[in-house]
């Protein structure tokens, strides 16, 4: 299948009365990929998705699908499939009635609707449930019906608004994998809204991190995790240690009374470094001169697959160091230690 469903968003703004929900978003989203809009609640990600679906009129800006401006098209002419947060299954129709709805209102003959419904039921592993009522289905089955319904018309765009939020944790993980495999099999351009960074990491080709109506960073999941552009992205995706200091010449940062060697720093402004807990090193004994801070262990927790150590280094927050149980050091509360931050793991982020 040739990839279709390339999307270009141009200066999108949405205002609800006083509230600016989306504050100028420009994005180029490639066809055939799964893209996540990730952010805390209220960041405008759902509003952005609804503007793409045509369910919300942009206050300003344009939406282009495969080069065509669809901003003024009502939702029913946009050729999209959408899975809603509430799933929004029609309670008066059976499973087959729901999945075949889009085909039937287009006047597709009955046998062909039935055949396509069977095909889709197989695709989402629900064969044999065609005549069930929606009320008789489990949460996971409902989710699959909603997915099948949205895909029935082979839409150009597949939109998912927190599609798994109603399910419990185990089922959610399982369906994340299923949905991703389905998307890869069909090669359909998919946009998913989520506030769950694990979900975004599991499923996406591309993650769009949003905050307060704006895009903070766009990138592949690992890139966003390893090279966060801003302090917000660094702390929203996973856990991180933010170290605030001042640039002290080329590739040098001053944090407290210590000097750090960090690539890509110049001038003498304020600098924020992000270091993931698993990249920081716990050192016993005296702190070395460069890229390390002395401190005191305030808390240790053992999570089985890893351990975490909270160290007070005199900064505004405790430094967290994580490691595998294998390399667990004999540390206890109140013990003086040092934390090392090797130059290659210090990422300079915008504050």
């Amino acid at each position, binding site marked *: 299948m040739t990839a279709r469903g390339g999307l270009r968003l141009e200066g999108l703004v949405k205002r*609800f*009365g006083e*509230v600016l*929900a989306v504050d100028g978003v420009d994005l180029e989203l490639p066809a055939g990929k799964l893209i996540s809009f990730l952010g805390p609640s209220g960041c405008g990600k*759902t*509003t952005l998705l*609804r503007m793409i679906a045509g369910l*919300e009129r942009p206050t300003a800006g344009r939406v282009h699908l495969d080069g065509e401006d669809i901003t003024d098209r009502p939702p029913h002419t946009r050729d999209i499939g959408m899975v809603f947060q509430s799933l929004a299954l029609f309670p008066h129709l059976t499973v087959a009635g729901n999945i075949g709805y889009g085909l039937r209102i287009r006047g597709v003959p009955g046998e062909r609707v039935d055949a396509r419904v069977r095909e889709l039921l197989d695709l989402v592993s629900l064969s044999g449930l065609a005549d069930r009522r929606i009320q008789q289905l489990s949460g996971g089955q409902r989710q699959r019906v909603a997915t099948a319904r949205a895909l029935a018309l082979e839409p150009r765009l597949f939109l998912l608004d927190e599609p798994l939020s109603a399910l419990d944790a185990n089922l959610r993980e399982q369906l994340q994998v299923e949905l991703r495999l389905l998307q890869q099999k069909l090669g359909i351009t998919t946009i998913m809204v989520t506030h769950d960074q694990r979900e975004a990491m599991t499923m996406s080709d591309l993650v769009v991190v949003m905050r307060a109506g704006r895009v903070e960073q766009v990138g592949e999941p690992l890139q966003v995790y390893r090279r966060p552009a801003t302090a917000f992205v660094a702390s929203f995706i996973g856990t991180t240690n933010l170290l605030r200091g001042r640039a002290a010449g080329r590739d040098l940062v001053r944090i407290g009374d210590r000097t750090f060697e960090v690539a890509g720093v110049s001038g003498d402004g304020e600098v924020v470094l992000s270091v993931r807990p698993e990249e920081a090193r716990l050192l016993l004994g005296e702190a070395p001169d460069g890229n390390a801070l002395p401190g005191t262990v305030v808390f240790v927790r053992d999570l089985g697959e890893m351990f975490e150590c909270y160290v007070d280094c005199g900064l505004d927050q405790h430094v967290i160091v994580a490691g595998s149980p294998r390399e667990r050091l004999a540390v206890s509360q109140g013990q003086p230690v040092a934390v090392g931050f090797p130059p290659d793991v210090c990422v300079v982020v915008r504050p």
Partner: protein
Amino acid sequence: MRVLRGALTALVVGFLVAPLVIVLIVSFNENRYMDFPPQGLSLHWYAELWNDPGWRSAIERSLLIATTSALLAVAIATPMAYVLRAYHVRLAPLLYAVGILPFMLPPVISALGAQVFWNATGHIYRIENVIVAHAIFFSTLPLITISLAMEQLDPSLPEAAQTLGASPRTTFRTVTLPLLLPSMITGYAAAFVLSLNEYIIAYLVAGFTVETLPIKIFNSLRYGFTPTIAAVAVVFILIAATVFSLFALYGNLLRFLGADESVLEKPEAR
């Protein structure tokens, strides 16, 4: 669809407003006879409403009946709504059904029932008969509003009061009752407004001796038109619109009417 929506809304608003507007115009007409366009504007008929002893005593009587019967209606409804929702009463569905039945049946049935009841007692054609009959008929309204409030009441609130040392009686007085108060006021207001406007029950129970405002209006209509009727109608409309606007401003009108606001407010919340 957008055109249809505008047209339909306009049609409905026109249908609901037209009679009110025409009555408003007639009430300001200077002439004793109805005519259109009106010959001149005057407040004469409003003054007559105030000065004419017949109209004035009808108003006073109706206000007396409405205030007292609504109070009695709330007094009947509150214990019922509270006990049926706070405790596990075996006959609760039946009792609740009897509570909402008066208002669900055509009013003429309650009217005739009250008439034969008072005939049987020999205590006939008294204003208190009308008050009791109205209280029973309209007690359904506070029963519904208070029951809804009881359902929405967080059961852990009275429990919290009890863990703090409040006896059941004190809990009811200091926690439950204040939380039920808005729904009691809503129920009272609804019963009040509808009692003020009620005709057939008042007529059959004591229409001969206790002339309420709606009875007076109907009697005047029978003997021929006077613009005073229009003036009364305008006053009524204003009372009703004021009461419900106050609801909308200070109470939660939408929830009172059964809307689920989490659904209603969704577009703004996103």
